[in-house]
């Protein structure tokens, strides 16, 4: 019996965003699956920073993907698709936030909800998770008190990991403005959070 030979497994590079967008534009809905899986998490995290609630953040992500994919002709490739999409996500999150405030007449700060999920036995999460949730809420409450331009800039850079150039492209501002907004946003966050984060 001949020895089994090891066949090299071809490694296929993931399709580029451009390729996926072209496939989607040509009617291939499976391309949407790839794009969605690729960017849903970062989009959710960005939206969550604005809204503080999973349900609202998912609404913003949904709205952003729909807007992006129905307006692809406006994406001219001057920035990456990720940058362009996240710009739309921040706008969608701001819209959802305003809509919620109009409905509920409550301040923008996230509600004091318990963590979004419990364990399978419906027991409250361990203390560490509660502490994380508490800190997350403090951060989100402080972010909510920043002016929208500073908050958008901060979230895109810190949460989405965009460079200064990418943030500038996304928001249509100069790098100097990105720099300035981040500087003053952080100073204000420090004042709002005092020792809660520094400890």
């Amino acid at each position, binding site marked *: 019996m001949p020895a089994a030979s090891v066949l090299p497994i071809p490694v296929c590079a993931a399709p580029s965003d451009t390729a996926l967008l072209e496939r989607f*534009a040509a009617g291939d809905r499976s391309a949407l699956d790839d794009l969605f899986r690729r960017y849903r998490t970062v989009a959710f995290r960005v939206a969550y920073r604005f809204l503080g609630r999973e349900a609202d953040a998912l609404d913003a992500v949904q709205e952003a993907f729909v*807007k992006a994919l129905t307006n692809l002709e406006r994406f001219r490739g001057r920035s990456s698709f990720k940058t362009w999409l996240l710009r739309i996500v921040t706008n969608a999150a701001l819209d959802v936030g305003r809509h919620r405030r109009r409905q509920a007449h409550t301040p923008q700060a996230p509600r004091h909800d318990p963590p979004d999920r419990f364990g399978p036995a419906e027991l409250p999460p361990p203390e560490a998770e509660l502490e994380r949730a508490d800190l997350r809420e403090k951060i989100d409450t402080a972010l909510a008190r920043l002016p929208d331009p500073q908050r958008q800039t901060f979230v895109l850079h810190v949460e989405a990991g965009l460079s200064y150039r990418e943030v500038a492209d996304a928001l249509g501002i100069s790098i*100097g403005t990105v720099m300035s907004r981040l*500087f003053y946003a952080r100073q204000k966050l420090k004042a709002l959070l005092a020792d809660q*984060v520094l400890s």
Partner: protein
Amino acid sequence: MTARTPDSPDPADPIAPTDRTDRADRTDRINRAEPTDPVTIPPEWLAAYADGELDAAERAAVERWLTAHPEAWADLEVQRLFSPANAALWERVVPPEPSPAAWDGVRRRIDAALGPHPPVGSGRKWRAGSRLLGGLALVAATAAAVAWVAFRPVVVPPGPQGSRPAEVVRSVTEPAVAPPPRPAPPDRLAPPDRHTPAAAPRPALLAELGVLALATDDEVTLERVPNTGRGWLPVGRGLLPEVLVLATADEVKLEEVAPSPAWPTGGPKVVTGPGDAPMIYAAKLR
């Protein structure tokens, strides 16, 4: 030398009144200083330093300045605290990942919202989603194209063949100086009727203008601005269910344009930003 304090910071957004801190300015600022000169740096450079966004010369300038101003280290620490590099903080506040079922639900709703997939370029539905700047109303008054928002589009009922259509518009903005003589343009620039086998070729009346495309051929006709005898408006071919809104205050800014024949007394220019908000440029001749 000390760090420059922000100039008249706006409590809402204390950015520098002019974008002086772009790379060229930063380089110039460094180059003008002696190597041992601490250099005066804007405080926001500390943010870029904390985020690793400065080049070697700029980092050296910041470090020289910090050496001369040790009291500023506290400001730098604040920048580092809230920098993406502070993984210890951000890993603690990562939001919980939605469940697979939640993601599936979002995916299904996206599919439902997209509907049957149309080919690219076959048209675009306006989606009202945000509100115009109050100040944009001023732009609308002077930039005729913004009447796309203020006007209810008039449905032009199909008349009998040969009936005189409404006077139609040549261009969104028209230069004050009369263009060179040309054959009188048609009153209506309706898109070709796809249902008519022998549709007339679309006049290239807009070919000379650099306009930002807002709608497809299917969605507009061009009609003369009423009571002016000049200027053109894109008019939707169907009634909008509500006022079309374009952008939030964050998505637009108004800038003065240099005087031009199109704006003999000067005028505002709406500057587009990337994203989903459709914007209207003042048309300019190519």
